[in-house]
């Protein structure tokens, strides 16, 4: 199992490359006309109508410690499959290619850090929690994210 290939869909937020397991993704969509929802915090962008179904769109840049996304023509939505959430997606700056990665090449930062500094504090652990680790690719570092953990963390915010 360790050597299984995982296909990541890559995308960019603030020029950093991220990837999510393609099996967690239902579709990529161009629709960025949100219906904003007053009273909700700004990491919830609003509702969008995808062929008659309502999706709630979130912005993970806060979660990743990046500046929040200004949508433009390159902005895309990544909509998750039902097993992650019934109707949730995130907005990203732009979409990249898909890459295949061997699971054992994913370098888990959390483990190595914990080894060096001992216990991490809770907050930090949560932040790193959404990432599976990083992968060195030819054209840069790919930070892999776990869709279910993204949602878990958004619920905690």
């Amino acid at each position, binding site marked *: 199992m360790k050597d299984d290939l995982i296909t990541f869909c890559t995308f960019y937020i603030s020029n950093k490359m991220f990837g999510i397991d393609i099996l967690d993704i239902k579709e990529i969509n161009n629709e960025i006309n949100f*219906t904003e929802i*007053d*009273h*909700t915090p700004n990491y919830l962008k609003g*509702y969008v*109508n995808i062929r*008659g179904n309502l999706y*709630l769109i979130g912005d993970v840049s806060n979660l990743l410690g990046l500046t929040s996304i200004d949508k433009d023509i390159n902005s895309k939505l990544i909509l998750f499959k039902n097993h992650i959430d019934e109707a949730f997606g995130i907005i990203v700056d732009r979409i990249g290619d898909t890459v295949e990665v061997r699971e054992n090449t994913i370098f888990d930062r959390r483990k190595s850090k914990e080894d060096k500094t001992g216990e991490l504090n809770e907050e930090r652990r949560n932040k790193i929690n959404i990432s599976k680790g990083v992968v060195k690719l030819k054209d840069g570092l790919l930070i892999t994210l776990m869709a279910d953990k993204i949602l878990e963390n958004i619920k905690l915010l």
Partner: protein
Amino acid sequence: MDQSIFDDFVIESREHIDSIQENLMVLEGTMESPEYEIVNKLFRAVHTIKGGAGFLGLSQISKLSHSMENLMSNIREGINKVDVEHIDTLLDALDMLTIMIDNPSESNNTDISDITQRLDNLSSSESPARDAIKADSDEKVYLAEDGHTIPYNKSKIKSIPKDYTNFFIMRIDLVKLEKDFNVKPYRIISDISSITYIIEGELDTQDSTLETSEDNLSLYHKLFVATAKSREELYSLLPDRSLAHILSVELVDKNKHEQEEKTDDENEIPSDKIHEPQKKEASVSIKSPSTADQTIRLRLELIEKLMGLTSELVLARNRILLLSDKYSNDTDLISTIQQFDSITSSLQESVMMTRMQPVGTVFNKFPRIVRDLSKDLGKKIDLIIKGAESELDKALVDSLSDPMTHLIRNSCDHGIEIPEKRIAKGKGETGTITLDAFHESGQINIVIEDDGAGINVEKICSKAIERGLISESALKELSEQQKLNLIMLPGFSTAEQVSNVSGRGVGMDVVKNTVERLGGSFDLESKKDKGSKIILKMPLTLAIVPSFVIECKKKRFAIPQISIEEIVTVENDSMIEKSIDWEMFRLREELIPVIRLEEILLSPEPFDENKRLEIIEKYHENRENSGQRIIVILKTGRSKYGLIVDNVLGTEEIVVKPMHSLLKKYTIYSGATIMGDGKVALILNADGIGSHAEILFYTDKSDKEQDISKIDDHRSVFLFNINSHEQYAVYLKDIIRIEKFDYSKLDSVGSKEYVSIENKTYGIIRIPRLIDTYDQIVNKEMYLILLKDMAKPSGILATEIIDSVNISEDLDEEAFENPHLLGTLMIDDRMTLFLDSNSLKNIQ
């Protein structure tokens, strides 16, 4: 074994349990002379459960139902005379059975010895008829099978219905049944048990462990049955003849002669009512297959899916209607679209009907609850159920179950007094709870009324102060009704001690919230020592809701029509008065608080006093030049207020989508919907907005005024002209609204006329066609008076709108005889004809 077989068994058994419970209640009511039909139904239901449980290896369920069956059989045969103890024991057994069936996998570990002991004691209780049977119950009879005879225990055969004279042994190939025909074994067994009496059933397999792979598995179910049907009829139950081997057997009874004598005796024993309707039973069993043909069982998911698709179709239709505006020259397209529109509406309606269920499914469990509670509490209570056949959406039926149970429990516990108290008050010792359901203007009303002690207002007030729910000074301001409504505050429970009946900390607030979440309203009336009355008004369906679309901060929102009382426009903010920290608006005689939607949207934090003062400051200065304000008057269960919005865009039938789980805590919304243009709009929750602004108890309406306004509703009429002769009147309560339209846009198909206003098509009702009068005067602009509850949306064509007035005199009902007229009256010296909107319902 396949989980789905278990599931089928559980589902079906629950239905049987419901019917057993209902019939037991009926039986209790007719203990003196039990109807054979009822007892037989009970017997069959239990018997079916027993058959299924035996087949699935659920031995304890089977054992318990066997004991129940025995007792019922005795009752049926007149061996046992029904008394309260029988009913109690059977109900207890039923409860135990319910528990086991809800969790079949655990059922075999359940201890049922107590209850089966009680059942068996009753079954074998001394009774002369019983002894006669007992004498030979252990004797053997012999079965002739294939030329062989095998002994058989006669006692097993004794409870067979008398006309079941054919005996068969069936051997059904279960593996083939499932594999080749995809039929669940349980279904077959239940079919068979519907026309036969299963004396014995056993699994027949070469493989004792059942652990070989499915391919090689051979599994037969062997049934020994008695029936009135022929062998061919048994074969016809199976999808294919090859699935079973049915062998006819004969009963050879050494004591046959004796037995016949005995049964003759039996016939004469107790009340002949029990035995006599044997023919009736036969006719029933013939009838049942034909009714079964007309209904099919559907998976709920399938209906849900159909519903979802229809909702999407409605959205697509709305969008097409919007787009069709651009092509209004293309008459072919327009007429096709109109056809599409009407088909979609009919389809939507029909699909909605598939989800309709009678409220009776909820009501039917109350007789048992009331019975048990009245015993626990030492009270005498009659429950009267009316209107159980009124239908509403399944989802609503399901979610009404809990709140209604709570209300019924409340009535029993707090409402109805103990007999001594009732007598002291000069009432009959038996209290009455009436449960009534009826349709009214597209809603269902459910009324729970008791003739008990009523709600003690003083007690509520002192409790509310004690719990710190309200200050003493604020309490003084409240009207009697508002004081009563304090009972609906969260965390309110007046029970002096927590009883196991009600008062578990959850109270009326939970009930109220549930009802309001479902889009309904909740009203409470109570008179000391006279009783209380609770009126629930529920929409018939949750999925599609007629709504107003409004605009605020350039965003669109939908507000369900059900929560809107009216919409008024005021010149500017100077019409809005200040009252300490509230903005108020004088609507006719009534002062109602005003909330600005814009401020609500801007402030995620709930309002407090300072926030409200700040808002008043903000708008006060410039109030003369604020421009026109539109105030939507909203009514929620406990309050009424005006909501200032930027614009009202029109009405739309919206498909409600629930909020995402992350958004549930934002209570100013109740859902979201997709508009005709494909954009998402949020649905505002009138109650949520009220709480966000902390409005709660600011309704300024005394009880007296409320009564008058109720009467007013029926006495205010709307006057209009169609020519210069007599004038016409329609009761205001029957009108949705008035639309002005361009007469040249009137269209007709055959003799039917219609007009499209804001993408909706309305039928035209012309008065001269209904009533003998002069021709209608036609102007460039005409009015359409849209009426409520029409078979198809339509309105009366009016030339001129006069006014709305209150009338005090009675109508003269004789001057003018016409089915569409209620009567006539002189108003302002003009002859006024009152139209009967009820008679117009089906006119098109």
